[in-house]
């Protein structure tokens, strides 16, 4: 590389840090955070780091570490990054603090939408939402004269036409990897049918017509998917899109930006973000939020400092620099076309992911049990009955069911 280019690159890099360095508070208390490690968290923790004395751990295994680390006295981290479900163990253990006074003191720039309230108290500050929604190849659908599908019935009909035309390897992609991903697909479909997971006394409530309908739609999808669907996770589906192998998928909003990444994608500008298709009752998707929590086991001074630094991390300046990294809930965010799918899904009334202790167990047994139905080993109602039995065993062991 020529010296001139190197110098120019250096100047650009320096000026970009200079533009960022505007942290309003000078932080003197040593602070640490533990969160997941995707793009949005990197942007937020980088912005927090500019206030000084701050160290971020971005860790994909954060959910295994967080409960123990926050229960320590004093807590090993002052700030935690959580989502709907991962907040539950911290909340249950009482290791995160109510934030009402801190919000009143330093939270002028927060919108009411960002305040996660449990029993009237603010327990977390949300920064972004994520949801699975429809992504499709506009060029292929336009060529074949297919309108944007809005229900799963229409998606399957469109998949049939695309298969007949033979323009891509597989009409549909899906995050059907056994375990969490497959469980989440069922959760989405079942919410789309209007079902609820847990009944009175934490008893399972999925073995019903809605559950069967959700399973049948999933099975119908597999006919149009890569036959190796049980190993396909979000990254795999994202790559199938980027390499032009699939035409449609219900994929995470946080993956939208990758479709237009010219370094990786062969389909830049061709993938349209649309609302999640409806089941028979509601959009077949669940809304997730990501946000920050603050440890109970730290001094009030530390909490003060941690909250102020966190506010610097999720301010308008950070958002304007990283507008397309996520669907932000923060003031100053201008939803681009990449966010259209998530916004439309929420507007159509998609339910929030029903996070709770029993739901954690339910999600796991769903993720492990559904493959048997898709493989053809069991029929739908046997599958659901077996999943309920597995849930009962685990819930009894956890003490949630007597």
């Amino acid at each position, binding site marked *: 590389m020529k010296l001139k280019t190197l110098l120019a690159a250096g100047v650009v890099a320096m000026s970009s840090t200079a533009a960022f360095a505007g942290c309003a508070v000078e932080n003197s208390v040593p602070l640490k955070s533990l969160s997941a490690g995707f793009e949005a968290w990197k942007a937020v923790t980088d912005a927090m780091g500019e206030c000084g004395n701050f160290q971020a751990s971005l860790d994909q295994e954060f959910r*295994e570490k967080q409960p123990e680390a926050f229960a320590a006295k004093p807590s090993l981290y002052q700030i935690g990054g959580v989502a*709907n479900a991962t907040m539950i163990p911290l909340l249950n253990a009482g*290791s995160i603090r109510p934030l009402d006074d801190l919000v009143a003191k330093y939270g002028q720039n927060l919108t009411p*939408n960002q305040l996660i*309230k449990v029993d009237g108290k603010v327990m977390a500050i949300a920064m972004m939402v994520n949801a699975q929604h429809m992504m499709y190849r506009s060029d292929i659908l336009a060529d074949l004269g297919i309108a944007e599908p809005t229900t799963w019935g229409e998606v399957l009909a469109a998949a049939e036409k695309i298969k007949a035309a033979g323009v891509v390897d597989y009409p549909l992609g899906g995050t059907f990897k056994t375990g*969490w991903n497959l469980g989440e697909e069922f959760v989405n479909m079942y919410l789309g049918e209007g079902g609820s997971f847990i009944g009175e006394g934490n008893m399972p409530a999925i073995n019903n017509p809605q559950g069967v309908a959700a399973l049948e739609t999933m099975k119908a999808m597999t006919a149009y998917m890569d036959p190796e669907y049980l*190993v396909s996770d979000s990254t795999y589906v994202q790559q199938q899109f980027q390499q032009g192998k699939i035409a449609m998928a219900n994929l995470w909003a946080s993956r939208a930006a990758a479709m237009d990444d010219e370094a990786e994608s062969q389909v830049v500008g061709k993938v349209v973000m649309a609302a999640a298709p409806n089941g028979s009752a509601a959009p077949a998707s669940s809304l997730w939020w990501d946000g920050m929590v603050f440890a109970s086991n730290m001094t009030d001074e530390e909490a003060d400092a941690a909250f102020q630094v966190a506010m610097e991390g999720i301010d308008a300046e950070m958002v304007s620099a990283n507008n397309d990294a996520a669907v932000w809930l923060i003031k100053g965010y201008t939803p681009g076309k990449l966010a259209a799918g998530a916004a439309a899904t929420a507007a159509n009334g998609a339910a929030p992911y029903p996070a709770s202790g029993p*739901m954690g167990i339910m999600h796991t047994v769903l993720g492990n049990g559904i493959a048997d139905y898709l493989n053809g080993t069991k029929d739908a109602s046997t599958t659901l009955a077996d999943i309920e039995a597995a849930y009962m*065993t685990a819930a009894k*062991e956890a003490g949630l069911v007597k």
Partner: protein
Amino acid sequence: MKFKTFAAFIGPSVFMMLLFIAFPLVSVFQQSFYITQPIYDLVEVETCTPGFLTQTCVTETQSVPKLDEEGAIITQTEFVGLQSYRNVLELGRAWDAVSSGSWAAFQAIDFWKALRFTLSFTLITLPLVIGAGLAIAVMINSAAKSVRGPVIFISLLPFIITPVIGALAINWLFRGDGILTAAMEWYLQRDIAMFAQAWTIEILMMFYRVWHVAPFAAIVFYAGLQTVNQDSLESAIIDGASRWQRLKYIVIPHLMPLIVFISMIHLMDSYRVFEEIVGFSSQGHVISLQWLTYDFLVPDQAGNRSISRASASAMLTMIGIALLLVPLLRRTWRDHQGGH
């Protein structure tokens, strides 16, 4: 050697064994008979979460664990006898499936599904590892002295690779349109999906395990080959024994103790098959006993984990290994007695 000197030599090792192996084992054994759970209160809770523009609030009854004054979750531990073992084995369901003669229903139960794969994996790879190991050892032994070093090095390579990495490498070679799948598709002129059904995944796993472990067997056998009595071999050649006959009647009987040794190590290792399941992410089709234990231990998003069932499943795995080793141990014992 005086007893005191002997004790001083062996003491630290015994201490470590007790601390790091025996005590944890006793603890796991004990935990498999108890369950520990938080005490829950039922509480009406209103939870508000963000929508894209406005919040959604829901009020529902939730189970919230009780906290003590220190802020720690109150738990109670209860003796449940063999309940966790029953939960893992699901004998009732297994018996129903067996008595109705339905193999599919039997294989729908996690433990028995895992046991079926673990046993077939162990017993099929065993002769393959020994055969391949012996073949490699004979090959090294008959290679010219000048190239023997490099040949040993190359044949040891698969054994050096970290198991998970090796499994992932094979996974990527065959996953989707991986290089080798693409090559097979080109050769056979048909679409192939190696990860779409259980049996192809199982073959890949066994292939990987044999590829990975055979070099270890080979190096042990190669060491054994150095001690074969040359006089017997020479007289066999003079008597007109073929290469195969010499292998069968002189070399293999000589290596028998080593073969038993390798078999024992291999049985113990492959009964705990785990890396293959993770590396090939085959949980949807194939699971193993060790993976089942691991799955019980992994906390879900809400932080629940099944320690008691994990303990029971771990104990069952140990019992399984012990049963598999019985014939080999008996053989070694007989030889040992016969030798004196």
